[in-house]
C-alpha cells in the first residue's frame, strides 16, 4: 500500500484541526478555503467541507456571517468563535506533543 494511502485516515482526522487553523485568520469563504487547501496534502471538496463546517458550527467552534457578493447571492463567511479559539490552542499543544513524541522515539 502507498504511504499516502496508509496515512489517509490521519489526514482525514486532522481536517477539522486544519479548518480551525484556516478560519482562525481572516473571515473566509468556502471556495477560498478549498483553493487554499488545493495544493496541500489536505486537498478536499465541498461534499466534505460543508458537512464538516455545519458540524463545527453546531459545536459552536466556528460561526459565519452573510456578506454580499458581486457575483450572485450573499455568501457565508466563516470565522472562529472564542470557544473555537480555546479548542484550537488545545489542538496545537496536542500536535506539538505528538511531534515531540515522534521525534524522541527510537533515539
Amino acid at each position, binding site marked *: 500500500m502507498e504511504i499516502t494511502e496508509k496515512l489517509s*485516515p490521519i489526514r*482525514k482526522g486532522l481536517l477539522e484541526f486544519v479548518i480551525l487553523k484556516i478560519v482562525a485568520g481572516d473571515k473566509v469563504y468556502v471556495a477560498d478555503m478549498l483553493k487554499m487547501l488545493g495544493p496541500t496534502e489536505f486537498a478536499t471538496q465541498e*461534499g466534505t467541507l460543508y*458537512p*464538516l463546517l*455545519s458540524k*463545527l458550527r453546531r459545536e459552536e467552534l466556528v460561526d459565519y456571517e452573510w456578506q454580499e457578493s458581486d457575483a450572485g447571492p450573499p455568501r457565508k463567511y466563516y470565522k472562529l468563535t472564542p470557544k473555537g479559539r480555546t479548542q484550537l490552542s488545545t489542538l496545537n499543544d496536542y500536535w506539538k506533543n505528538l511531534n515531540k513524541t515522534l521525534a524522541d522515539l527510537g533515539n
Partner: protein
Amino acid sequence: MQKVVTISLNGIAYQLEEPGYNQLRTYLERAESRLQDSPDRAEVMADLEQAIGEKCRAVLGPHKTVVNSAEVDRIIVEMGPVESADEREKAAGAGGESGASAGSGAQAGGPPPRKRLFQIREGAMWMGVCNGIAAYLNVDVTWIRLAFVLLTIFSSGLWFVTYLVLMFVVPVAHTPEDRAAAFGMPFNTEELISRAKKNFEEFGEKYRWRREWRRQQRHFNRQFRNMNEQLRVATAQAQPVIHSSARAIGLVFVPIAALISAVVAVAFILTLFSLLTQHTVFGWGLPHGVPLWVGIVALVMLYIAVSTPLRMIRHGGQQSAGYHPGLGAFHSLLWIGFVALLFWVSYTYLPGVREVVDSLTWAANLTVSTLTETIV
C-alpha cells in the same frame, strides 16, 4: 438537440441539459440520503445548492444560457461525494486505534452499495429488462435473453407478460450512477407500485408504446407464419403413418390429459390466490427475506414448467390420433368439468382452500355492497 430542464438552486433558476439534470438530481438525492441522520441536513443541502449554483454561473455567459451535461458532470466531480461529518468521525474512530487497521478503515468509509434492479437501455435489444437482470445477477445477457425467449415459447406467450410487467415495474437507469447501482437494493413494494403507475403514464404519453407494440407484433406474426408453414409441411409428410387405431388411443388419452391439466391449473390458481391474499402458500410462509414478487414469479415458472410438457404430450397425442376438432372440444369440456369438480372438492375438504376462497368472497361481497351503497 437536447431537451433543457430549468431548476432552482437556492432560489435562482438555472437551465441544464436533461442528462445533466438527471445526474445532478441523483447527486443531490444521494447527498440527502447520506445526511439523513445529521441535524445539519437542511443547512448543508442549501450550502451545496449554492455552491453548485455558483459553479453553474461560472460556465454561463451572456451568450451561453444552458449548462451542458459535460459541465454538470465536471461540477459533480468537483463537489465530491457528500459525507456526513459525524459518520466520518465514527469511521476514523473505528480504524484509528491500531495503525494496522487504519488503512482498511479508510476504505470502508461506507457500506458497499447495494445492488438494484434496473432496466438498462444501453445495448438493449428492446427495453433493457434482460440487460438489467443480467447486470443484477452478474451473468452474460445472452443467457437471460435465451431464458426469456425459451420461456416465452414454452409458455406459448404467457411469459412475455412477465417482461411487460417488469418493464413497468423496474426503474430505468438514467444516469451512470444508476447504472453503477444496477451492478451493485432490492426495491421495496410501495416504491414498486407507484413507479409502475408513473412509468405507465409516461409511456402512454410518448406513444412509443403503440409503435413498439406494432413493431413487435409484425415481428411475431412473421415468425408464426414461418413456423406454421413448417408445421404444415411436417404434418403433410407424416400423414401416411397415421392409422385409425390411433384415434381410439386418443379417446382414452384425452380424459387423462384433461384431468391432469385441470389438477395443475386448479392448484396453480389456488396457490396464487393464497400468495396474494395471505402471503403464504396455505399457511406455509415464504422463506425469510424472499419478497412476494419473487414467490409469484417462482410460482408462475413452476406452473409453466409443469403444464408445458403436459400440453406438448397432449398435442402429440392428438396429432398421432389424426387431428380431429371434436377431440379438442371434448378435451376442453372435460377440462372445465374437472376444474369445477376439483374446486368443489378442495373447497369442501381442504380448510386452507376454504379460508382463501372465503376471504375472496368476503372481499367481493364487500366491494359489491360498497358499490351498491354508493350508487343507491
